């Protein structure tokens, strides 16, 4: 049974279609595996075994009726900032510790309709603010490749669960790298689609001009399958875009002859560990050897991205998180202090230190007298960055670079250093600021830890991004090695 768990989503789907295993048997096997591995990894905040079995039965009924769709009966899991009707959604925050949404996020509804089986809600940095999942109010998640190390963040639970085979795919959210960075740290595939490609309705908002939902999977093919299920215009999210939805599996072409790949030189500076740069350069060399046209390009504004992001994202967060006031849902503290006192006590008790820090920065950056110096400047900087991406994309079809400057760091190593932790996102943040699609695929190992290759595309050109990623995957032949994360001694 264990070998079934390490299969890709596409492979297990075939087994379900061919009746080699039933959806209920698969759900049971996955739940048993979760019970065995979860004490070490701690990827989940709320496992949902009963729901999983119920959904598996429904999926099996559809399979029995002859339906053959790729997600039908497949165990998946969701980051805990995606609203799930009737299932606790905490955002890894004390302020939402008891919140049970009355409705599904659009992506959750789409996965339900596709027949996926939900095995649980996954740990994350509180309100998706962080790069290690250490800012969860509940517990730390461990990297399946080395249990002393972080899985990355903020979608750390989403990446760890896929790497440890506790789900065939998960959803995460990415505001400054929160899908791609943990994907790189845990040796999984992770895609942040173009801003507007996937509806955010029911995603607990952090920074609305940057947030995007996307899949974490074992392979690029699986990524295309999940993306197919979650894209589309949604009347509930005015920023979602009406576009013809291609079948993203059409991008799975093992051929990139003539594709022009840009290597942005700034993404190899900025504290990138030489061994990481080397691993990624080697991958780029291999892509060139199979026909990609590689050229160096420059995006000088990328070096300003962290500064721009840490004004814009906190500013938006300070506004978005104003809704947690102890009145309609979540924690309430200090009702005896009057209505203002209650809000102040509720928020100070319910939010963790990192969230409070960002609310304060954002409130300050938006406050009277400072708006022009910070917020407006950051928005203008964002324009310059976007223009530089536009101009680079006149010359190339996609960009290739490392996803993160280093492999996964140790638990506790950076947690007290306000800037060092944020540098983990320095190569992913520019992509959010410009709204572009970005994919991380495993491209090798440094000291036994996975390293991610980041592929950045033109707006709404996920097809090229997936094609480059798929081609890389075929040349890299890392699948067998990626199947058995070392921290778990095989499969645990």
């Amino acid at each position, binding site marked *: 049974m264990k070998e079934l768990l390490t299969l890709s989503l596409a492979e297990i789907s075939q087994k379900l279609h061919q009746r080699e295993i039933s959806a209920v048997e698969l759900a049971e096997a996955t739940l048993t595996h979760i019970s065995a591995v979860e004490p070490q990894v701690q990827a989940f905040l709320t496992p949902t075994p009963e729901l999983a079995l119920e959904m598996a039965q429904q999926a099996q009924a559809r399979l029995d009726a002859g339906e053959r769709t790729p997600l039908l009966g497949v165990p998946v899991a969701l980051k805990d900032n995606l609203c799930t009707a009737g299932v606790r959604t905490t955002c890894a925050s004390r302020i939402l510790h008891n*919140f*049970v949404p*009355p*409705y599904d996020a659009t992506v959750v509804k789409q996965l339900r309709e596709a027949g996926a089986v939900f095995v649980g809600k996954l740990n994350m940095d509180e309100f998706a603010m962080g790069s290690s999942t250490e800012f969860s109010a509940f517990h730390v998640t461990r990297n399946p490749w080395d249990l002393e190390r972080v899985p990355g963040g903020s979608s750390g639970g989403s990446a760890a669960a896929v790497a440890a085979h506790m789900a065939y795919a998960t959803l995460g959210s990415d505001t400054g790298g929160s899908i791609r960075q943990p994907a790189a740290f845990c040796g999984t595939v992770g895609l942040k689609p173009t*801003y507007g490609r996937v509806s955010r309705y029911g995603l607990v908002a952090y920074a609305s*001009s940057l947030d995007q939902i996307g899949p974490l999977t074992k392979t690029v093919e699986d990524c295309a399958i999940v993306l197919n299920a979650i894209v589309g215009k949604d009347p509930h999210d*005015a920023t979602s*875009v009406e576009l013809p939805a291609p079948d993203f599996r059409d991008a799975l072409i093992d051929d990139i002859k003539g594709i022009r790949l840009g290597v942005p030189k700034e993404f190899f500076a900025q504290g990138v560990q030489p061994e990481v740069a080397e691993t990624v350069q080697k991958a780029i060399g291999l892509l060139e050897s199979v026909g990609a046209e590689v050229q160096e390009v420059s995006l000088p504004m990328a070096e*300003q991205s962290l*500064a721009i992001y*840490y*004004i814009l994202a906190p500013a938006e967060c*300070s506004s978005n998180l*104003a809704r947690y*006031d*102890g*009145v*309609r*849902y*979540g*924690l*309430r503290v*200090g*009702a005896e*202090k*009057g*209505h*203002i*006192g*209650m809000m*102040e*006590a509720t*928020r*100070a008790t319910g939010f963790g*230190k990192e969230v*409070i*820090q960002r*609310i*304060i*920065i954002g*409130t*300050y950056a938006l*406050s009277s007298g400072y708006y022009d*110096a*910070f917020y*407006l*400047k*950051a*928005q*203008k*900087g*964002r*324009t*310059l960055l*976007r223009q530089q991406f536009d101009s680079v994309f006149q010359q190339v079809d996609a960009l290739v670079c490392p996803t993160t400057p280093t492999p996964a760091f140790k638990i506790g190593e950076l947690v007290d250093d*306000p*800037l060092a932790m944020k540098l983990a996102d320095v190569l992913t943040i520019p992509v959010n*600021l410009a*709204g572009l699609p970005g994919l991380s695929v495993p491209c090798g190992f440094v000291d036994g830890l996975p390293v991610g290759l980041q592929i950045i595309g033109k*707006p709404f050109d996920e097809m090229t991004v997936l094609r480059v990623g798929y081609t890389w995957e075929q040349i890299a032949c890392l699948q067998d090695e990626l199947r058995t994360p070392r921290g778990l001694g095989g499969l645990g």
Partner: protein
Amino acid sequence: MALTLEQMRHTAKLARLELSDEQLTDLMHAINALMAHFERLQALPLDEVEPTSHSFPVYNAFREDVVGATLPREAALANAPEARDGLFIVPRIVEE
């Protein structure tokens, strides 16, 4: 530019956060370390640049003004810290 404790107190009040001076001092050090990093933005030639609020132009999204499904009152109140008679209960706001 660095924040002072006085500015921290004021900002925390604006953000409705009840924090002690000790907590604020702690936060102030962390925030000022980050602010030093933001300084680099001040040096950019940005006067002639238009600000970008979204990475793609998002215009008003209109829809027909029609009645749709809404949450039943019970569902809307189900997460309330305190509810009675179909209403959210909050501390007294208007003095007697």
